[in-house]
Protein backbone atom coordinates (compact mmCIF):
# COMPACT_ATOMS: atom_id res chain seq x y z
CA UNK A 1 0.00 0.00 0.00
CA UNK A 2 1.26 3.46 -0.87
CA UNK A 3 1.21 5.36 2.39
CA UNK A 4 2.09 8.74 0.85
CA UNK A 5 -0.52 9.20 -1.84
CA UNK A 6 -3.25 6.99 -3.20
CA UNK A 7 -5.81 8.37 -5.62
CA UNK A 8 -8.69 6.29 -4.21
CA UNK A 9 -7.93 7.40 -0.67
CA UNK A 10 -7.59 11.00 -1.85
CA UNK A 11 -11.02 10.70 -3.43
CA UNK A 12 -12.38 9.46 -0.11
CA UNK A 13 -10.89 12.32 1.88
CA UNK A 14 -12.18 14.81 -0.72
CA UNK A 15 -15.63 13.29 -0.34
CA UNK A 16 -15.33 13.30 3.47
CA UNK A 17 -14.31 16.96 3.57
CA UNK A 18 -16.88 17.76 0.89
CA UNK A 19 -19.68 16.33 3.02
CA UNK A 20 -18.57 18.66 5.84
CA UNK A 21 -18.17 21.62 3.49
CA UNK A 22 -21.67 23.06 3.13
CA UNK A 23 -22.86 22.47 6.71
CA UNK A 24 -19.78 24.29 8.01
CA UNK A 25 -19.63 27.29 5.70
CA UNK A 26 -23.01 27.88 4.12
CA UNK A 27 -24.24 30.23 6.86
CA UNK A 28 -21.11 32.41 6.62
CA UNK A 29 -21.37 32.48 2.81
CA UNK A 30 -25.06 33.36 2.98
CA UNK A 31 -24.35 36.31 5.27
CA UNK A 32 -21.59 37.59 2.96
CA UNK A 33 -23.74 37.06 -0.14
CA UNK A 34 -26.51 39.02 1.55
CA UNK A 35 -24.41 42.21 1.90
CA UNK A 36 -24.86 43.45 -1.73
CA UNK A 37 -28.55 42.50 -1.54
CA UNK A 38 -28.95 44.61 1.60
CA UNK A 39 -27.16 47.54 -0.07
CA UNK A 40 -29.44 47.12 -3.09
CA UNK A 41 -32.61 47.00 -1.03
CA UNK A 42 -31.52 49.89 1.19
CA UNK A 43 -30.71 52.09 -1.81
CA UNK A 44 -33.88 51.07 -3.68
CA UNK A 45 -36.11 51.85 -0.72
CA UNK A 46 -34.66 55.34 -0.21
CA UNK A 47 -36.64 58.18 -1.87
CA UNK A 48 -34.98 58.72 -5.25
CA UNK A 49 -33.82 62.07 -6.66
CA UNK A 50 -30.87 63.21 -8.79
CA UNK A 51 -28.45 62.60 -5.93
CA UNK A 52 -29.41 58.95 -5.49
CA UNK A 53 -26.24 56.97 -5.74
CA UNK A 54 -25.89 54.50 -8.57
CA UNK A 55 -23.40 51.69 -8.21
CA UNK A 56 -21.34 50.99 -11.31
CA UNK A 57 -20.08 47.43 -11.91
CA UNK A 58 -16.50 48.35 -10.96
CA UNK A 59 -17.47 49.53 -7.48
CA UNK A 60 -19.39 46.28 -7.07
CA UNK A 61 -16.41 44.26 -8.30
CA UNK A 62 -14.33 46.01 -5.62
CA UNK A 63 -16.91 45.02 -3.02
CA UNK A 64 -17.04 41.42 -4.28
CA UNK A 65 -13.21 41.25 -4.27
CA UNK A 66 -13.04 42.61 -0.72
CA UNK A 67 -15.71 40.19 0.45
CA UNK A 68 -13.95 37.30 -1.31
CA UNK A 69 -10.85 38.15 0.76
CA UNK A 70 -13.00 37.92 3.88
CA UNK A 71 -14.27 34.55 2.67
CA UNK A 72 -10.68 33.36 2.21
CA UNK A 73 -9.84 34.55 5.71
CA UNK A 74 -12.70 32.80 7.45
CA UNK A 75 -12.80 29.61 5.36
CA UNK A 76 -10.09 27.54 7.15
CA UNK A 77 -11.52 28.18 10.61
CA UNK A 78 -15.04 27.41 9.38
CA UNK A 79 -14.12 24.26 7.47
CA UNK A 80 -11.41 22.78 9.67
CA UNK A 81 -12.00 24.41 13.03
CA UNK A 82 -11.76 21.17 15.03
CA UNK A 83 -8.83 19.54 13.27
CA UNK A 84 -6.33 20.54 16.01
CA UNK A 85 -8.80 20.37 18.89
CA UNK A 86 -7.46 18.02 21.60
CA UNK A 87 -10.82 16.21 21.76
CA UNK A 88 -12.72 16.79 18.55
CA UNK A 89 -9.63 16.63 16.36
CA UNK A 90 -9.00 12.97 17.20
CA UNK A 91 -11.43 11.73 14.54
CA UNK A 92 -9.70 13.83 11.87
CA UNK A 93 -6.20 12.82 12.99
CA UNK A 94 -7.11 9.14 12.98
CA UNK A 95 -8.80 9.12 9.59
CA UNK A 96 -6.85 6.59 7.53
CA UNK A 97 -5.53 9.02 4.93
CA UNK A 98 -1.98 10.26 4.54
CA UNK A 99 -0.82 13.69 5.65
CA UNK A 100 -0.36 14.68 2.01
CA UNK A 101 -3.92 13.64 1.11
CA UNK A 102 -5.40 15.54 4.08
CA UNK A 103 -3.26 18.56 3.26
CA UNK A 104 -4.22 18.61 -0.44
CA UNK A 105 -7.88 18.25 0.41
CA UNK A 106 -7.62 21.15 2.88
CA UNK A 107 -5.91 23.31 0.26
CA UNK A 108 -8.48 22.32 -2.35
CA UNK A 109 -11.44 23.39 -0.24
CA UNK A 110 -9.89 26.51 1.33
CA UNK A 111 -8.03 27.91 -1.67
CA UNK A 112 -10.07 26.75 -4.64
CA UNK A 113 -13.59 25.59 -3.83
CA UNK A 114 -14.59 28.23 -1.28
CA UNK A 115 -13.59 31.34 -3.28
CA UNK A 116 -15.01 29.90 -6.51
CA UNK A 117 -18.35 29.13 -4.88
CA UNK A 118 -18.42 32.57 -3.28
CA UNK A 119 -17.51 34.45 -6.48
CA UNK A 120 -19.91 32.46 -8.67
CA UNK A 121 -22.69 33.06 -6.16
CA UNK A 122 -21.83 36.73 -5.73
CA UNK A 123 -21.74 37.35 -9.49
CA UNK A 124 -25.01 35.48 -9.97
CA UNK A 125 -26.66 37.59 -7.26
CA UNK A 126 -25.18 40.76 -8.79
CA UNK A 127 -26.52 39.79 -12.24
CA UNK A 128 -30.02 39.18 -10.85
CA UNK A 129 -29.95 42.50 -9.00
CA UNK A 130 -28.64 44.33 -12.08
CA UNK A 131 -31.55 42.95 -14.10
CA UNK A 132 -33.96 44.60 -11.71
CA UNK A 133 -34.71 48.26 -12.07
CA UNK A 134 -32.55 49.51 -9.24
CA UNK A 135 -29.31 51.25 -8.33
CA UNK A 136 -27.04 48.59 -9.87
CA UNK A 137 -25.90 49.69 -13.34
CA UNK A 138 -24.31 47.21 -15.75
CA UNK A 139 -23.14 43.70 -14.95
CA UNK A 140 -20.13 43.04 -12.72
CA UNK A 141 -19.71 39.65 -14.38
CA UNK A 142 -18.88 41.39 -17.71
CA UNK A 143 -15.72 42.93 -16.26
CA UNK A 144 -14.79 40.66 -13.36
CA UNK A 145 -12.27 38.59 -15.28
CA UNK A 146 -11.00 41.42 -17.52
CA UNK A 147 -8.34 43.00 -15.34
CA UNK A 148 -7.22 45.64 -17.86
CA UNK A 149 -10.71 46.83 -18.64
CA UNK A 150 -11.29 47.05 -14.89
CA UNK A 151 -8.10 49.09 -14.29
CA UNK A 152 -8.78 51.42 -17.22
CA UNK A 153 -12.35 51.96 -16.14
CA UNK A 154 -11.33 52.72 -12.57
CA UNK A 155 -8.72 55.22 -13.79
CA UNK A 156 -11.25 56.87 -16.07
CA UNK A 157 -13.91 56.90 -13.41
CA UNK A 158 -11.61 58.41 -10.78
CA UNK A 159 -9.94 60.70 -13.31
CA UNK A 160 -6.47 59.42 -12.49
CA UNK A 161 -3.93 61.29 -14.58
CA UNK A 162 -0.87 61.36 -12.33
CA UNK A 163 1.19 59.56 -14.82
CA UNK A 164 0.25 57.50 -17.82
CA UNK A 165 3.47 55.54 -17.78
CA UNK A 166 2.43 53.24 -14.99
CA UNK A 167 -0.83 52.48 -16.76
CA UNK A 168 1.34 51.56 -19.68
CA UNK A 169 3.46 49.50 -17.35
CA UNK A 170 0.39 47.62 -16.16
CA UNK A 171 -0.61 47.09 -19.76
CA UNK A 172 2.81 45.71 -20.56
CA UNK A 173 2.21 42.88 -18.11
CA UNK A 174 0.85 39.73 -19.64
CA UNK A 175 -2.66 38.54 -18.72
CA UNK A 176 -1.07 35.29 -17.57
CA UNK A 177 1.13 37.19 -15.13
CA UNK A 178 -1.88 39.05 -13.78
CA UNK A 179 -3.78 35.78 -13.31
CA UNK A 180 -0.75 34.22 -11.59
CA UNK A 181 -0.42 37.30 -9.35
CA UNK A 182 -4.09 37.16 -8.46
CA UNK A 183 -3.98 33.40 -7.79
CA UNK A 184 -0.85 33.86 -5.74
CA UNK A 185 -2.56 36.54 -3.66
CA UNK A 186 -5.47 34.17 -3.03
CA UNK A 187 -3.06 31.38 -2.07
CA UNK A 188 -1.09 33.66 0.25
CA UNK A 189 -4.09 34.93 2.20
CA UNK A 190 -5.58 31.47 2.42
CA UNK A 191 -2.33 29.78 3.45
CA UNK A 192 -1.70 32.35 6.20
CA UNK A 193 -5.12 31.69 7.70
CA UNK A 194 -4.84 27.93 7.17
CA UNK A 195 -1.65 28.07 9.20
CA UNK A 196 -3.37 30.20 11.87
CA UNK A 197 -6.14 27.62 11.96
CA UNK A 198 -3.57 24.90 12.69
CA UNK A 199 -1.57 26.70 15.36
CA UNK A 200 -4.35 28.30 17.39
CA UNK A 201 -6.98 26.35 19.28
CA UNK A 202 -9.45 29.22 19.81
CA UNK A 203 -10.21 32.60 18.20
CA UNK A 204 -8.09 31.38 15.31
CA UNK A 205 -8.93 34.07 12.74
CA UNK A 206 -8.85 36.94 15.24
CA UNK A 207 -5.44 35.93 16.58
CA UNK A 208 -4.01 35.61 13.08
CA UNK A 209 -5.37 39.04 12.09
CA UNK A 210 -3.82 40.45 15.28
CA UNK A 211 -0.44 38.97 14.41
CA UNK A 212 -0.64 40.36 10.85
CA UNK A 213 -1.49 43.84 12.17
CA UNK A 214 1.47 43.74 14.56
CA UNK A 215 3.77 42.54 11.78
CA UNK A 216 2.47 45.25 9.46
CA UNK A 217 3.09 47.96 12.09
CA UNK A 218 6.64 46.68 12.69
CA UNK A 219 7.24 46.52 8.93
CA UNK A 220 6.00 50.09 8.44
CA UNK A 221 8.16 51.41 11.31
CA UNK A 222 11.23 49.74 9.79
CA UNK A 223 10.35 51.01 6.31
CA UNK A 224 9.75 54.61 7.43
CA UNK A 225 12.96 54.58 9.47
CA UNK A 226 14.81 53.31 6.44
CA UNK A 227 13.27 55.96 4.18
CA UNK A 228 14.06 58.78 6.62
CA UNK A 229 17.62 57.67 7.20
CA UNK A 230 18.41 57.14 3.54
CA UNK A 231 16.62 60.44 2.69
CA UNK A 232 14.90 58.70 -0.21
CA UNK A 233 11.80 60.83 0.26
CA UNK A 234 13.62 64.14 0.27
CA UNK A 235 15.68 63.54 -2.85
CA UNK A 236 14.97 65.76 -5.77
CA UNK A 237 13.76 63.31 -8.32
CA UNK A 238 14.15 64.71 -11.79
CA UNK A 239 12.06 62.24 -13.69
CA UNK A 240 9.05 61.65 -11.46
CA UNK A 241 7.26 59.51 -14.04
CA UNK A 242 10.25 57.21 -14.26
CA UNK A 243 10.49 57.13 -10.46
CA UNK A 244 6.81 56.13 -10.09
CA UNK A 245 7.20 53.46 -12.76
CA UNK A 246 10.34 52.10 -11.13
CA UNK A 247 8.74 52.10 -7.68
CA UNK A 248 5.70 50.22 -8.92
CA UNK A 249 7.96 47.75 -10.67
CA UNK A 250 9.83 47.18 -7.41
CA UNK A 251 6.64 46.83 -5.38
CA UNK A 252 5.07 44.42 -7.86
CA UNK A 253 8.18 42.26 -7.85
CA UNK A 254 8.55 42.44 -4.08
CA UNK A 255 4.90 41.40 -3.64
CA UNK A 256 5.31 38.60 -6.17
CA UNK A 257 8.34 37.06 -4.47
CA UNK A 258 7.07 37.74 -0.95
CA UNK A 259 3.82 35.95 -1.81
CA UNK A 260 5.70 32.93 -3.13
CA UNK A 261 7.90 32.75 -0.02
CA UNK A 262 5.07 33.37 2.46
CA UNK A 263 2.75 30.85 0.75
CA UNK A 264 5.46 28.19 0.65
CA UNK A 265 6.34 28.70 4.32
CA UNK A 266 2.74 28.75 5.48
CA UNK A 267 1.76 25.68 3.46
CA UNK A 268 4.78 23.80 4.73
CA UNK A 269 3.76 24.81 8.26
CA UNK A 270 0.22 23.52 7.67
CA UNK A 271 1.57 20.20 6.34
CA UNK A 272 3.91 19.82 9.33
CA UNK A 273 1.12 20.60 11.78
CA UNK A 274 -1.21 18.02 10.21
CA UNK A 275 1.61 15.48 10.42
CA UNK A 276 2.80 16.20 13.94
CA UNK A 277 -0.19 17.69 15.78
CA UNK A 278 -0.50 16.16 19.27
CA UNK A 279 -3.89 15.43 20.80
Amino acid at each position, binding site marked *: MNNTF*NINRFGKILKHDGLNFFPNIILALAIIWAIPVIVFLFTSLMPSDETTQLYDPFSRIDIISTLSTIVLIIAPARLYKTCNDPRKGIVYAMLP*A*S*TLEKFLSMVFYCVIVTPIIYIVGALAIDTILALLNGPYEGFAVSYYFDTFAKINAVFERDNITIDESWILYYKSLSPTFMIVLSALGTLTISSIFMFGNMIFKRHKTGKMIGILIIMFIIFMIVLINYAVHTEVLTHNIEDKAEFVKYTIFLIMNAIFYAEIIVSALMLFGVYRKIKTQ*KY
Partner: protein
Amino acid sequence: MIKINNLDFAYNNTQVFKNISLEFQKGNIYGLLGENGVGKTTLLKIICGLQKPQNGSVSVDGFTPSKRLPEFLQNVFLLPEEVITEDTTPERFIQKIGVFYPRYDFALFNQLMGELEVDLSKKFNELSHGQKKKAWLACALSLQTDYLFLDEPTNGLDIPSKALFRQVISQHCSDESTIIISTHQVKDVENLIDPIVILDRDDVLLNASFAEITEKIYFEYGPERLQNAYYTEMLPGGYINVMPNTEHEESNVNIEALFNAVMKNKETIKNLMK
Protein backbone atom coordinates in the same frame (compact mmCIF):
# COMPACT_ATOMS: atom_id res chain seq x y z
CA MET B 1 1.06 -7.22 18.57
CA ILE B 2 1.81 -4.00 20.39
CA LYS B 3 5.37 -3.65 21.67
CA ILE B 4 6.45 -0.79 23.90
CA ASN B 5 10.13 -0.58 24.74
CA ASN B 6 11.78 1.78 27.23
CA LEU B 7 9.11 4.42 26.74
CA ASP B 8 9.67 7.89 28.16
CA PHE B 9 6.95 10.46 27.96
CA ALA B 10 6.34 13.82 29.65
CA TYR B 11 3.89 16.67 29.28
CA ASN B 12 6.16 19.73 29.51
CA ASN B 13 7.85 19.15 32.90
CA THR B 14 5.50 16.46 34.15
CA GLN B 15 6.96 13.01 33.66
CA VAL B 16 4.27 10.45 32.85
CA PHE B 17 6.25 7.39 31.76
CA LYS B 18 9.86 6.64 32.50
CA ASN B 19 11.48 3.69 30.80
CA ILE B 20 8.44 1.45 30.70
CA SER B 21 8.22 -1.68 28.57
CA LEU B 22 5.04 -3.56 27.82
CA GLU B 23 3.48 -5.96 25.33
CA PHE B 24 -0.11 -6.51 24.25
CA GLN B 25 -0.78 -9.81 22.46
CA LYS B 26 -3.41 -10.18 19.74
CA GLY B 27 -6.81 -11.69 20.38
CA ASN B 28 -7.27 -10.44 23.94
CA ILE B 29 -9.42 -7.93 25.74
CA TYR B 30 -7.01 -6.10 28.00
CA GLY B 31 -8.04 -4.20 31.08
CA LEU B 32 -5.80 -1.19 31.57
CA LEU B 33 -6.00 -0.12 35.20
CA GLY B 34 -4.28 2.49 37.28
CA GLU B 35 -4.86 5.36 39.66
CA ASN B 36 -5.96 8.76 38.37
CA GLY B 37 -3.23 10.52 36.44
CA VAL B 38 -0.89 7.56 35.92
CA GLY B 39 -1.18 7.91 32.16
CA LYS B 40 -3.75 5.36 30.99
CA THR B 41 -5.27 7.75 28.45
CA THR B 42 -1.82 8.98 27.45
CA LEU B 43 -0.69 5.40 26.84
CA LEU B 44 -3.69 4.80 24.57
CA LYS B 45 -2.95 8.04 22.71
CA ILE B 46 0.69 7.04 22.24
CA ILE B 47 -0.34 3.63 20.88
CA CYS B 48 -2.76 5.36 18.48
CA GLY B 49 -0.13 7.86 17.32
CA LEU B 50 -1.85 10.89 18.81
CA GLN B 51 1.16 11.55 21.04
CA LYS B 52 4.80 10.92 20.32
CA PRO B 53 7.13 9.39 22.92
CA GLN B 54 10.21 11.40 23.85
CA ASN B 55 12.31 8.26 24.07
CA GLY B 56 11.87 4.57 23.44
CA SER B 57 9.83 2.85 20.80
CA VAL B 58 6.24 1.85 20.22
CA SER B 59 5.37 -0.64 17.51
CA VAL B 60 1.93 -1.86 16.45
CA ASP B 61 2.23 -4.79 14.03
CA GLY B 62 5.54 -3.30 12.92
CA PHE B 63 4.17 0.23 12.40
CA THR B 64 5.37 3.27 14.31
CA PRO B 65 2.08 4.87 15.42
CA SER B 66 3.36 8.46 15.52
CA LYS B 67 3.95 8.32 11.74
CA ARG B 68 0.18 7.95 11.31
CA LEU B 69 0.45 5.97 8.11
CA PRO B 70 -2.92 5.15 6.51
CA GLU B 71 -2.12 1.42 6.55
CA PHE B 72 -1.71 1.65 10.33
CA LEU B 73 -4.65 4.00 10.94
CA GLN B 74 -7.11 1.76 9.09
CA ASN B 75 -6.51 -0.92 11.71
CA VAL B 76 -6.91 1.14 14.87
CA PHE B 77 -9.75 3.08 16.45
CA LEU B 78 -9.83 5.03 19.69
CA LEU B 79 -13.05 5.75 21.51
CA PRO B 80 -12.16 8.61 23.87
CA GLU B 81 -13.60 9.04 27.35
CA GLU B 82 -15.36 12.26 26.45
CA VAL B 83 -17.48 11.40 23.48
CA ILE B 84 -17.29 13.83 20.62
CA THR B 85 -20.52 15.56 19.73
CA GLU B 86 -21.00 15.66 15.97
CA ASP B 87 -23.81 17.65 14.41
CA THR B 88 -24.91 14.62 12.43
CA THR B 89 -26.62 11.28 12.94
CA PRO B 90 -24.44 8.30 13.87
CA GLU B 91 -25.57 6.69 10.61
CA ARG B 92 -24.31 9.56 8.45
CA PHE B 93 -21.14 9.81 10.50
CA ILE B 94 -20.26 6.14 10.09
CA GLN B 95 -21.03 6.27 6.35
CA LYS B 96 -18.65 9.22 6.10
CA ILE B 97 -15.71 7.61 7.87
CA GLY B 98 -16.47 3.92 7.27
CA VAL B 99 -15.26 4.01 3.66
CA PHE B 100 -11.70 4.42 4.94
CA TYR B 101 -11.77 1.13 6.86
CA PRO B 102 -11.44 -2.06 4.78
CA ARG B 103 -13.62 -4.28 7.03
CA TYR B 104 -16.29 -1.67 7.84
CA ASP B 105 -19.74 -3.26 7.85
CA PHE B 106 -22.80 -1.01 7.71
CA ALA B 107 -25.17 -3.92 8.41
CA LEU B 108 -23.20 -4.65 11.57
CA PHE B 109 -23.51 -1.00 12.57
CA ASN B 110 -27.30 -1.16 12.22
CA GLN B 111 -27.35 -4.44 14.15
CA LEU B 112 -25.25 -2.94 16.96
CA MET B 113 -27.39 0.19 17.13
CA GLY B 114 -30.37 -2.10 17.55
CA GLU B 115 -28.67 -4.25 20.18
CA LEU B 116 -27.56 -1.17 22.10
CA GLU B 117 -31.01 0.37 21.76
CA VAL B 118 -29.88 3.67 20.26
CA ASP B 119 -32.32 5.86 18.33
CA LEU B 120 -31.08 5.88 14.72
CA SER B 121 -32.94 9.02 13.74
CA LYS B 122 -31.33 11.35 16.27
CA LYS B 123 -28.17 13.38 15.82
CA PHE B 124 -25.26 12.84 18.21
CA ASN B 125 -25.92 16.17 19.89
CA GLU B 126 -29.56 15.22 20.48
CA LEU B 127 -28.65 11.98 22.28
CA SER B 128 -28.09 11.63 26.03
CA HIS B 129 -24.53 11.05 27.25
CA GLY B 130 -25.08 7.31 27.63
CA GLN B 131 -26.79 7.03 24.23
CA LYS B 132 -23.92 8.94 22.64
CA LYS B 133 -21.42 6.52 24.17
CA LYS B 134 -23.37 3.57 22.85
CA ALA B 135 -23.68 5.12 19.39
CA TRP B 136 -19.91 5.68 19.31
CA LEU B 137 -19.36 2.12 20.45
CA ALA B 138 -21.55 0.86 17.59
CA CYS B 139 -19.51 3.00 15.18
CA ALA B 140 -16.23 1.73 16.63
CA LEU B 141 -17.18 -1.95 16.51
CA SER B 142 -18.66 -1.75 13.00
CA LEU B 143 -15.28 -0.60 11.65
CA GLN B 144 -13.88 -4.01 12.68
CA THR B 145 -10.37 -2.74 13.20
CA ASP B 146 -7.66 -5.05 14.52
CA TYR B 147 -7.12 -2.76 17.50
CA LEU B 148 -9.84 -1.01 19.43
CA PHE B 149 -9.03 1.27 22.34
CA LEU B 150 -11.81 2.18 24.74
CA ASP B 151 -11.13 4.89 27.30
CA GLU B 152 -13.52 4.66 30.26
CA PRO B 153 -16.26 3.21 28.05
CA THR B 154 -18.75 2.54 30.84
CA ASN B 155 -18.66 6.03 32.38
CA GLY B 156 -22.13 7.49 32.13
CA LEU B 157 -23.82 4.22 31.17
CA ASP B 158 -26.78 3.05 33.22
CA ILE B 159 -26.87 -0.50 34.64
CA PRO B 160 -28.72 -2.15 31.71
CA SER B 161 -26.42 -0.37 29.27
CA LYS B 162 -23.35 -1.70 31.07
CA ALA B 163 -24.68 -5.22 30.62
CA LEU B 164 -25.34 -4.47 26.93
CA PHE B 165 -21.84 -3.09 26.64
CA ARG B 166 -20.29 -6.30 27.99
CA GLN B 167 -22.55 -8.34 25.73
CA VAL B 168 -21.67 -6.58 22.47
CA ILE B 169 -17.96 -6.44 23.26
CA SER B 170 -17.74 -10.15 23.97
CA GLN B 171 -19.92 -11.01 20.96
CA HIS B 172 -18.09 -8.90 18.43
CA CYS B 173 -14.50 -9.46 19.53
CA SER B 174 -12.67 -11.88 17.25
CA ASP B 175 -9.45 -13.87 17.70
CA GLU B 176 -7.71 -11.41 15.41
CA SER B 177 -8.74 -8.28 17.26
CA THR B 178 -7.27 -6.71 20.35
CA ILE B 179 -9.32 -4.51 22.62
CA ILE B 180 -7.76 -2.41 25.35
CA ILE B 181 -10.21 -1.03 27.88
CA SER B 182 -8.92 1.68 30.16
CA THR B 183 -11.18 1.96 33.16
CA HIS B 184 -11.71 2.77 36.81
CA GLN B 185 -14.96 0.85 36.88
CA VAL B 186 -13.45 -2.62 37.19
CA LYS B 187 -16.73 -4.20 38.23
CA ASP B 188 -18.26 -3.14 34.90
CA VAL B 189 -15.71 -5.16 32.97
CA GLU B 190 -14.93 -7.88 35.50
CA ASN B 191 -15.97 -10.83 33.35
CA LEU B 192 -14.84 -9.23 30.13
CA ILE B 193 -11.18 -8.37 30.51
CA ASP B 194 -8.30 -10.79 30.53
CA PRO B 195 -5.32 -10.06 30.83
CA ILE B 196 -4.93 -7.13 33.18
CA VAL B 197 -2.35 -4.37 32.99
CA ILE B 198 -1.84 -2.20 36.06
CA LEU B 199 0.04 1.03 35.47
CA ASP B 200 1.78 3.08 38.10
CA ARG B 201 3.63 6.35 37.82
CA ASP B 202 6.79 5.50 35.89
CA ASP B 203 6.14 1.76 36.01
CA VAL B 204 4.07 -1.22 34.87
CA LEU B 205 3.16 -3.11 38.01
CA LEU B 206 1.34 -6.00 36.40
CA ASN B 207 0.72 -7.42 32.95
CA ALA B 208 -0.71 -10.87 33.32
CA SER B 209 -3.63 -13.08 32.36
CA PHE B 210 -6.09 -14.37 34.96
CA ALA B 211 -4.46 -17.80 34.71
CA GLU B 212 -1.04 -16.35 35.44
CA ILE B 213 -2.42 -14.27 38.29
CA THR B 214 -4.23 -17.16 40.01
CA GLU B 215 -1.18 -19.34 39.62
CA LYS B 216 0.75 -17.01 41.89
CA ILE B 217 -1.92 -15.17 43.86
CA TYR B 218 -4.73 -16.70 45.86
CA PHE B 219 -8.02 -14.94 46.57
CA GLU B 220 -9.38 -16.28 49.79
CA TYR B 221 -12.92 -15.50 50.87
CA GLY B 222 -13.29 -16.29 54.59
CA PRO B 223 -14.52 -15.18 57.98
CA GLU B 224 -11.26 -13.68 59.18
CA ARG B 225 -8.46 -11.29 58.25
CA LEU B 226 -5.27 -13.25 57.47
CA GLN B 227 -1.91 -11.97 58.65
CA ASN B 228 0.15 -13.01 55.61
CA ALA B 229 -2.27 -11.42 53.09
CA TYR B 230 -1.04 -8.74 50.72
CA TYR B 231 -4.37 -7.06 51.10
CA THR B 232 -7.52 -7.67 53.08
CA GLU B 233 -10.89 -6.12 52.59
CA MET B 234 -14.07 -6.56 54.53
CA LEU B 235 -16.99 -7.81 52.45
CA PRO B 236 -20.56 -8.54 53.54
CA GLY B 237 -20.26 -11.82 55.44
CA GLY B 238 -16.51 -11.91 55.80
CA TYR B 239 -13.21 -10.90 54.28
CA ILE B 240 -11.39 -11.23 51.02
CA ASN B 241 -7.69 -11.90 51.48
CA VAL B 242 -5.27 -11.52 48.60
CA MET B 243 -2.28 -13.69 49.36
CA PRO B 244 0.56 -15.67 47.79
CA ASN B 245 -0.65 -18.92 46.25
CA THR B 246 1.79 -21.20 47.99
CA GLU B 247 -0.48 -24.25 47.80
CA HIS B 248 -1.25 -23.80 44.07
CA GLU B 249 -4.96 -23.62 44.75
CA GLU B 250 -7.51 -22.31 42.28
CA SER B 251 -9.45 -19.15 43.00
CA ASN B 252 -11.48 -16.45 41.31
CA VAL B 253 -9.82 -13.11 40.66
CA ASN B 254 -11.39 -10.15 42.37
CA ILE B 255 -10.01 -7.31 40.26
CA GLU B 256 -10.68 -4.57 42.77
CA ALA B 257 -8.95 -6.49 45.56
CA LEU B 258 -6.12 -7.40 43.20
CA PHE B 259 -5.67 -3.77 42.22
CA ASN B 260 -5.53 -2.64 45.84
CA ALA B 261 -3.13 -5.47 46.71
CA VAL B 262 -0.83 -4.46 43.85
CA MET B 263 -0.93 -0.80 44.84
CA LYS B 264 0.00 -1.66 48.45
CA ASN B 265 2.73 -4.17 47.57
CA LYS B 266 4.14 -2.79 44.36
CA GLU B 267 7.60 -4.31 44.36
CA THR B 268 6.58 -7.58 46.02
CA ILE B 269 3.85 -8.41 43.53
CA LYS B 270 5.87 -7.13 40.60
CA ASN B 271 8.70 -9.47 41.52
CA LEU B 272 6.27 -12.30 42.24
CA MET B 273 4.74 -12.04 38.76
CA LYS B 274 8.07 -11.92 36.92
